[in-house]
């Protein structure tokens, strides 16, 4: 396991409100870290700071050796990011969209086609590759977003609610994809669904009111509660925050 992600005292305030409060952790390849927390806990904001979309009020994130404050462009080049809701240009086809992203990521000609082809294959969106994204189901849209984040085969993947709003079959597909990639990558996902942590994560961090209140393997967290129920731990640590 190589350490590829380290977060130092990451903090974000909007006005007087502190949304993310001094988050510290490190993660390496082979880890799937699940940010777990109620809505509005600061999971997305933390991710947005790691990928260089929002500037932290304090602290920083280092991704693959690049400091996001000093060299945001290197971080953006190194990381794969799926924003919440998997936004994509609705008038484009997945093929055109992925081709655009691959171009911006620096691929040209045959290399570009190959990258796009591989991402389409990994996320199984072949059937809809030539249809406007506008017309796709939620599940397919999410997979187009995932394909976009995988194009450059990044070591660090940040996925904001990758399965939110999907039906059980679609969830299954996305989870399998995450598990398949877990070995050689460092993946951070956010979710408010507890079963997801059990299904894909090797480590869970419970975040509430911008603070990390629990950090450990799903099994560790379960052991904290008498009943071995993740739900109970979640309720316990988030209730009094």
């Amino acid at each position, binding site marked *: 396991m190589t350490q590829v992600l380290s977060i130092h005292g990451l903090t974000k305030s909007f006005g007087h409100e502190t949304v993310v409060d001094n988050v510290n952790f490190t993660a390496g390849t082979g880890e799937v870290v699940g940010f777990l927390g109620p809505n509005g806990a600061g999971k997305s904001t933390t991710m947005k700071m790691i990928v260089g979309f929002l500037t932290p009020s304090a602290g920083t994130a280092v991704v693959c050796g690049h400091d996001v404050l000093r060299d945001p462009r290197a971080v953006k080049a190194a990381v794969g990011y799926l924003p919440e809701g998997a936004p994509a*240009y609705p008038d484009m086809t997945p093929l055109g969209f992925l081709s655009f992203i691959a171009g911006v990521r620096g691929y040209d000609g045959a290399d570009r086609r190959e990258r796009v082809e591989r991402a389409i294959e990994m996320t199984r969106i072949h059937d809809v590759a030539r249809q406007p994204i506008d017309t796709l189901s939620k599940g397919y849209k999410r997979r187009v977003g995932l394909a976009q984040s995988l194009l450059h085969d990044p070591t660090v993947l940040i996925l904001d609610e990758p399965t939110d709003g999907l039906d059980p079959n679609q969830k299954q597909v996305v989870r399998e994809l995450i598990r398949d990639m877990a070995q050689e990558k460092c993946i951070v996902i956010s979710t408010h669904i507890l079963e997801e942590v059990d299904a894909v994560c090797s480590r869970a961090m419970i975040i509430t009111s911008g603070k990390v209140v629990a950090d450990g393997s799903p099994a560790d967290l379960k052991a904290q509660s008498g009943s071995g129920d993740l739900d109970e731990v979640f309720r316990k640590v988030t209730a009094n925050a």
Partner: protein
Amino acid sequence: MRNVNLVFRREFAAYFSTPLAYIFIVIFLALAGILTFRLGGFLDREQADLVPFFEFHPWLYLFLIPALSMRLWAEERRLGTIELLLTLPISMTEAVVGKYLAAWAFTATAVALTFPLWLTVNYLGNPDNGVILASYVGSLLMAGAYLAIGSMISATTKNQVIAFVVTTTTCFILTLAGSPAVLDFFSAWAPADVIQAIGNFGFLPHFQSIQRGVIDLRDLIFFGSLIIIALIANAIIVDWRKAF
């Protein structure tokens, strides 16, 4: 440059992937024709020039350009793709310039499609084609200034209707800045220097001087600096408001 080009091509293609491009071009051409022949009296004047055509460009742009520029950033915000775009290894300048140039190139396409008028006037008489060329350049520069302002305003909101209305109003004031309608409002209380400065911001005098066939450096600098300042402000606004 590479990224500007990629953003440019994506944006430019986006116009044509919806009916927007075709509707815009058809309406632009139809209105330009009606205004030139009806209001401008192109044929009745019996003069071989395109003055009645160019004369109406500021007014055509006034409500057609905001319709183009309103989606530039407001749409990215509404769709959430702004987060995607700005987490790609691409600089803010590349994103702003690429999008802006696509809108400008699209406007230039629509304006270029008015070439039958140029053919007509050459068929009917012997116009000064140098003046006509200068007028086209001036028209595009003015369109560029409207677009830059529209792009900047579009960056402040996710609501395209707001972007449209605010841009139209702003451009209306800028177009008429040198005219009594606007100056009278200020003359009651503002010092003479301020009034003159406001007067100099009017688009019309600058466009009209180019229309006479003289591309004066001062007019180029006026529109050029306006475009650059608006785009810098555009980038700052996108950066500052991206969290909202």
